């Protein structure tokens, strides 16, 4: 194996840390998705409660639940962005390491 370029290795190590942070971010996003899921299901059940009391409010609650669903979809998009970002960081690390070994 060819001797590795020290500065490139340092860069690759730094990027590895960034990758870890990106993984943390993804966990936060997943937690947010779970919270939104819970809110949506609570709103769904709550709409059933309102049905017998005030159908108009029940309709409003259902609209809120739909909005939460659309928020959930957007957070999913955010998670996709993060996954893409993490995969780019990974390929960048691989590229730097290859370059450092003179394989690129």
């Amino acid at each position, binding site marked *: 194996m060819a001797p590795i370029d020290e500065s490139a290795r340092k*860069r690759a190590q730094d990027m590895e840390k960034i990758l870890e942070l990106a993984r943390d*971010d993804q966990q*936060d996003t997943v937690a*947010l998705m779970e919270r939104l899921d819970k*809110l949506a299901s609570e709103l769904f059940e709550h709409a059933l*409660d309102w049905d*017998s009391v005030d159908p108009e409010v029940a309709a409003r609650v259902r609209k809120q639940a739909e909005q939460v669903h659309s*928020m959930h979809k957007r957070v999913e998009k955010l998670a996709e962005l993060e996954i893409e970002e993490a995969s780019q960081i990974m390929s960048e690390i691989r590229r730097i390491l290859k370059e450092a070994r003179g394989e690129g």
Partner: protein
Amino acid sequence: MKGSQQSSGRRGGRWPWRGIRWLAGRLSRRRRAVVANPRTWCALVTDAEHRAAEDFGRAVRSQDIATRQLDIAIQLRVLLREMRELATAWAAVGPPELATAAGAATENLRTAWKRIVELEGAAVDAARLAVADTGRSLSPHRAYAVRARAERWQTLADLELDLALRLHGLVVEQHGLTSQWAEERHDVAESACAVEASLRAAWSQLLRHELAVISGVADSIRAARFPGTDRQ
């Protein structure tokens, strides 16, 4: 046979009456427990509706905040990605000070993004809490519906109790007739005895049903979360 009829007649003349009185007592106690002043109930339900509407308004506001924060979080994430790409490019080719500055800017963006996501989570939690409060506020409505159901059960129980009393009177009468036939004609006494047995069976079936109805009333009361206790 006569002896056994007398023995069963004694049973029919003693414990069943006690049973009916017990049933009647249970019923009136349940009635006292369930039937409250309707005006008070209406006032509580109206108050609960106001409270529920306020709680729901709080949930909507929190959700609006969460939506706006999500917009910011997404924009920040896109910016963060671009800044990271820039930092990587500078780290590969540019002067080290530029790479360091780009790295610091990336870190700042990430901190801002993380904070926004935290706030977003808090706003979603606040909305969930408000929704839960709304559900609790609505509980008098549920209690009101359960109370109405309990009242319907009670009406049914009243009717059945009346029927049980009449049926029991008929059983006693029939038993007297069976005893009279037993002294004169054995074959007629046997069919009279059969009639008495079927009357008795119907009566005890009615009693069992009555008990089930009373249990239904009791279950309804337990199922209701009465106002004043639901927020404890």
